[in-house]
């Protein structure tokens, strides 16, 4: 029963959501002010998701608490993480109680957000610029035809998408006005779009196949 009940719930929820998509009529879809099964399921889903956030925090703290207790060499990072979680929580609750909204300008939470969280996250992301430049220099080599094509396309898009590229190339060829921004736009609109569409269709087909496997109980790894 421990496995059968979740499988039945999954099957019924999946089938009802699919039916509601194609037949959005009561009792599957809503009727005037009467919420249908789909609306109920979506509400339950949202409520459950709220609880999974608590579960996530609990698991995270338990994992790092264990590391601290075992005296792991990474324990200082775990201490920093747990202390940060509780400071954020305390500052957030305090701001909510005192100001009615933690996001209110001038509240301690916004101070914490503006002067600690934003700079930390921005710094982490800004480092990417340095690593991308270094990685492009070392890895972007014209080793074969495919790599060369990629290299040329990337160079055209990189220069064609910035103002500096506006006046580098400006010629008429077979009656066409060719500029770098136009070449960059063509690369994005045509070959890139075709490839992206192919990937999207592939991902969608994979998603459908996986969903059917889960709904029909063939794929059960989520139960383990």
């Amino acid at each position: 029963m421990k496995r059968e009940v979740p499988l039945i719930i999954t099957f019924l929820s999946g089938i009802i959501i699919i039916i509601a998509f194609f037949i959005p009529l009561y009792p599957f879809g809503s009727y005037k002010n009467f919420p249908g099964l789909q609306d109920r399921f979506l509400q339950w889903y949202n409520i459950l998701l709220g609880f999974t956030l608590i579960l996530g925090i609990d698991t995270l703290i338990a994992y790092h608490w264990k590391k601290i207790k075992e005296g792991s060499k990474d324990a200082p990072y775990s201490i920093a993480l747990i202390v940060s979680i509780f400071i954020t929580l305390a500052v957030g609750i305090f701001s909510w109680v005192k100001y009615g909204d933690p996001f209110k300008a001038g509240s301690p939470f916004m101070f914490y957000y503006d002067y600690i969280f934003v700079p930390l996250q921005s710094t982490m992301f800004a480092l990417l610029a340095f690593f991308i430049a270094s990685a492009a220099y070392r890895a972007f080599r014209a080793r074969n035809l495919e790599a060369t094509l990629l290299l040329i396309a990337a160079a055209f898009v990189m220069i064609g998408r910035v103002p500096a590229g506006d006046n580098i190339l400006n010629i008429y060829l077979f009656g066409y006005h060719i500029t770098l921004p136009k070449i960059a736009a063509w690369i994005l609109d045509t070959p890139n779009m075709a490839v992206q569409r192919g990937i999207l269709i592939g991902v969608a087909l994979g998603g459908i196949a996986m969903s059917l496997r889960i709904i029909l109980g063939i794929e059960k790894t989520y139960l383990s």
Partner: protein
Amino acid sequence: MKKIYDILEFLGKIDRRWIFLFVFVFTTLPLALKFKVRVTPTEEVKIAFNYIENLKEGDRVLISIDYDPASMPELQPMLYAILRHLFRKNLKVIMMGHWPLGLPLGKTALEEVAKEYNKKYGEDYVFLGFRPGGSAVMVAMGSEIRNVFAADQYGTPLDSLPVMRDVHNYDDIALLIGLEAGSTGDFWVQFANARFGQEIILGCTAVIAPNLYPYYQAGQIRGIIGGLRGAADYENLVGKLGTGSIGMWVQSAIHILIIIFIIFGNVGYFVLRRRRKRSV
């Protein structure tokens, strides 16, 4: 001749700390000088701008904040420019978000621009905040927004706010603008557009932009505002240049620098390969 080859080979072996130093200088210098660059807006951004331009006064526009401070340099100037356009056109703004850590950014921009245009909270704009659920929230909003957001961020019931009184689902929203740093934009297209026919414009980081072209070409989204360039384009169209336009100098300098380094790397690589072949 050997000396020239040595120099060319060296170009392929530059220490990465030199690259870091060049990137640092080429980034900070233009930022410190604060040059604002006028750009010729790209087609996708012009189409997005014109779509908003053609909305009727009083139409509701939903903005979804789906990014956090990591993507702030690209998406925040975009948000400011879009908000200025919306308030200038006297459109009503409804703001929500799927990324809780980005919501303060959205709220700050909303309040700042609303003040610039003397707009009143509850009448001209509203801030709904965050609800967990992602795609489930999008689908539920298709039947009744109150099923997900019974009240705004401050706990005021939606029916008490004039701006939300007649707004129940996507039928009452003229346009959805998603500002995306991840895959939430795909879900907006798949659920809000494909299922409920919601008109959408997506603003996104430059990394995400190429993924959105199939939706744009199929008419599922009404425009793409991609990356810092998209933000600068929109600022130019709105007529108030901001950090997006300042960033164009930095982006031009860095892109050229990276291409120069790639050329150096390839010259060094081919010289080394030629020497190895000869020695064999």
